[in-house]
């Protein structure tokens, strides 16, 4: 199982903060495609992805039990 988290405008576009998917062994790129298929209106083009709170790249593998966060460009401060 993989837990997906969404923040800021992504959270509003998707309509909730998080959801879980059963299968594992996706790459980050494949996960993005999965999300886009489920939620075609979501804009992931500029999103960064963190696996277990570490920034990741599209080629990184996501494993069972991982928490994957989709982060729009940040605007703190």
């Amino acid at each position, binding site marked *: 199982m993989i837990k997906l*988290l969404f*923040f*800021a*405008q992504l*959270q*509003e576009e998707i309509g909730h903060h998080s959801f879980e998917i059963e299968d594992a062994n996706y790459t980050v790129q494949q996960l993005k495609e999965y999300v886009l298929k489920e939620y075609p209106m979501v*804009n992931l*083009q*500029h*999103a960064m992805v*963190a696996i277990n*709170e570490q*920034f990741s790249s599209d080629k990184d593998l996501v494993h069972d039990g991982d928490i994957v*966060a989709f*982060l*729009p*460009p*940040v*605007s*703190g*401060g």
Partner: protein
Amino acid sequence: MPNQLYKVIENPIQTEEVIRKVESRNAGAITVFIGTVREMTNGKRTLYLEYQAYKTMAEKKLNEIGNEIENKWPNTKVAITHRIGRLEISDIAVVIAISSPHRNVAYEANRYAIERIKEMVPIWKKEVWEDGEMWIGDQLQKTRLNKS
């Protein structure tokens, strides 16, 4: 942990508390950056801001920034608190305190800290206006420019 150096909180920030964390007998200077909520942005009046964070990751990233600073400028001490939730005009959103034996470094390192926060700490703000609202971030600003 009351003495945690890097915090994301929902209550008003006690600036004095942040400063106290970096006090040191070796310090010759403490710089304090206080980021506040501005009313007018590009001619538009903000009613209030809504900040959201990926809290645990944000605190880790703030800690990383502190480590970067302490490596780059030895003998500095860093403490950062960022507030999230609904913030009114003039409320304090972030406080960065840095102590150093010398003032130049304290100024320089403090500037570095806020720039890094804006680059890599997972915190977002939404501007709420009378006639709408928008999550702020490069993405939307670029999108807007491209569309216009």
